[in-house]
């Protein structure tokens, strides 16, 4: 059984980040975009915890991660409210519709 080390974590986190980014860039559904953002955030969380565990030591990274989770919750709440508002305005949650700033 191979020993799990820092690079495994980083690979998982990297995959998670790319998946999240891909979701954000390609999905037209605003809710899905928000979900992608969550993935990106969690990729960062994994990095924080991993680096703390293998490089720094102590509990600083974990604490930061807890904060990021709370922040993500708040961000999701705000994001969903914005989505709701977009829906009210455009009768759809397709992100392509919200291009009023263009002109």
């Amino acid at each position, binding site marked *: 059984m191979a020993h799990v080390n820092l690079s495994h974590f980083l690979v998982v986190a990297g995959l998670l980040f790319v998946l999240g980014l891909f979701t954000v*860039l390609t999905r037209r559904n605003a809710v899905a*975009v928000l979900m992608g953002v969550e993935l990106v955030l969690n990729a960062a969380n994994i990095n924080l915890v991993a680096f703390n565990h293998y490089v720094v030591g102590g509990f600083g990274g974990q604490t930061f991660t807890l904060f990021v989770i709370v922040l993500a919750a708040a961000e999701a709440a705000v994001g969903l409210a914005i989505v709701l508002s977009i829906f009210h305005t455009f009768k759809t949650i397709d*992100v*392509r519709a*919200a291009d*009023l*700033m*263009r*002109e």
Partner: protein
Amino acid sequence: MEHALNELGPIAVHKVSYLWLIPLFPAVGAFINSLFGVRIQRVAGKRAVHVLAIGTMTLSFLVAVRAFLEMYSLAPDERFLQQTLWNMVSAGRLSFDLGFALDPLSMMMVLIITFIGTLIHVFSTGYMAEEPSYWRFFAYLNLFVFAMLLLVMGDNFAVMFFGWEGVGLASYLLISFWYTDIEKAKAGMKAFVVNRFGDFGFILGLFLLFWSLGGVWAQRADLRSLGYTPEIGDRAVPEARNPFLAVGPKTAEAHEREVKIGPTLNFRELRDQVVIESTGVAEHLKHQVVWGFALMAVVGILLFVGAMGKSAQLPLYVWLPDAMAGPTPVSALIHAATMVTAGVYMVARLSYLYALSPTAMGWVAAIGVLTAFFAATIGFFQYDIKKVLAYSTVSQLGFMFVGVGVGAFWAGTYHLLTHAFFKACLFLGSGSVILGCHHEQDMRKMGGLKKHMPVTAFTYLVACWAIAGFPWASGFYSKDEILWKAFTARDLAFLGHSAPWLGPAIFVLGILAATGTSFYMFRSYYMTFTGSYRGGEGHAEEHDEDPHAAHAAPHHVTAAHPHDNVDPDAAQGHGAHGATSHGAHAADAHGHVVHGKDDHGHVHHGGAPHESPLSITAVLVVLAAGAILTGLLGIPAAWTGHEPLLERWLSPALPAEVHFAEFPHSTEFLFQGLGVGAAIVGWFFARLLFKDGRSPVPAQLKKRFFGAWTVVYNKYYVDEAYQALVVRPSLFLARFLFWFDQHVVDWLVNFVGWLGRFVANIDGAIDKYVVDGAVNAVAGLTGEAGRAMRRIETGRITTYLYGLTLGSLLVVLFNFLFR
């Protein structure tokens, strides 16, 4: 006169807070009446207008009385009430306040002005009753009183000068009150312009005085070496820090009695530094020389030039007779009782300066006595009752200047006081006569008015006694005191040379003028009030001999023109004024509109003359009483053994020290006898020639000396001389300058304008094509760039995220490649 100058200390200032009310009330009256007078008169009637005007005058008088009582309760050398409102100008060494001060001298003036002013306001309600612009008249009167109060109450030259110009303005407005009559408008203009000549001298004298006091600093090396340099507001520096300021007695109150040395406009500061010998200012001024002349003589004479204008002395007296074009109350208030005395007041106020220069004093006295004599001779032959009084005023002002000129400052001031009463009484009496005779001013058309106007006749007679100098009337005391002091004066100088003969010479000419005064005043009395009424007819015998019309001066204003077929009144009052007279007389109880015996085509003449209403006669009685009672203030020391009341009252305000020769009392009695003799001689001849208008002698004398008579009747052709020497050349100069302006100056202006336009055209082209081109190019480029760039702005979040990701990747790539 025993105390030497160095015993005088600085003035003790007694601060009070109500002085400003005295000029304020008339100012408010003038303000309201001039702005809202039309409405007030229309809505509330003339009564409201004069109630306002007289009310403000009365309040002013009451405050003045209050000030008098306060001053009276103080010790004589502390009688100096002062109030400073605020600082008006503070620039370098020049600093003055809006401040008022009352010392015994200005107190007297304020009482005269407010008291006689109030009486004349009351008189005007009767005299001007039919005037449509009633409100305007009262607004001007109040304005005049306001300015006059500023003049006498100002505690520095600046405020005095405001008043000085203010009375000039008010006088102008009132002389040309009936401005639709071009002659009257001209008379007002003449008064204004002639006064301007005088004011020019006055202000030059002021500058010179200020400058020379500055010179004191330059010379006083001892003060500078002690470390003191004059600065703005140095009088605020407490004495403890600046011991060099205080040269007064080192007493407990010394800190209030510091003396400022240096240039000042303030009368108190000026007086303190000149009068207190230890400052050395007087000594310094006395010996200073400008352009080869003694400084103080130049200052004194220049200031006196101002007085010559305002107080109508030779040769600037010409405006005063013409000023009779104004309504009669104005003549009484401005041109007899108050304004014309401003010059005398000014000389008395600066007595300590004049005392430094015997030359200036001699000049003042000589001009005064020449004027007195000259004007008296003109007065002999005038027919217009107001003209007689006008020349009489000029003559009496001459006497006042003799008084202040020979150093008897209190006597000159005293004559000012008595003159204010009797001349106001005479003028208002003449006003009453003019009103009673339906706006007739020619004495040849009067006569016998004693029957019709007993009160006016009696008060006029009383005032004649006073002005002629009969004993126990006020004029006797003041005029004899002046002449006596003139005779005993020894300090005078003539053009820098000591001239002990000048005083007696002045006396001789003065006593002749006094004889003349008595003659022409009683002549006017007899012509007006005795004999039979000649109104509308009975002056035929004068027609053939009157050269007046042939020599009519361009400036004759109110004088009747017996040769003209036009009714004299038609020439003088019909513009704004005559029209109303119809209504006036129709409404009159005497009911004389058009009369059968009127053979001259008079429209509103004829009918018996009538006594004036109570508002007029009451004032006349009060003034006549004053003309007698003011004599009590000046009973000479030779009679009672102590100095006259008024001299004692005024002495703190007149600190100048002038020496007079000593004579025993018997000599003084002799000279008083001479004065009375002069009055009797004048009266005797007047009675002989003019009583009842029966004597043929005047006509014969006139035929005999027709040439001389013509010259004097036409006032020595002084007006014509002015016309030729001053008016014509200045008109010519004005026309030349007009031509110059039109052709040379305007051409230059036009050329400059054309040049400007030419340059502007070039400049415009550059602006349009070069500057604007650059600006437009930049703007166009920016616009094009923007249009190209907007393509990438899709407004979609996804696009931006792509951009973000791409950018991040690029940064990472760069990091790898260019580590």
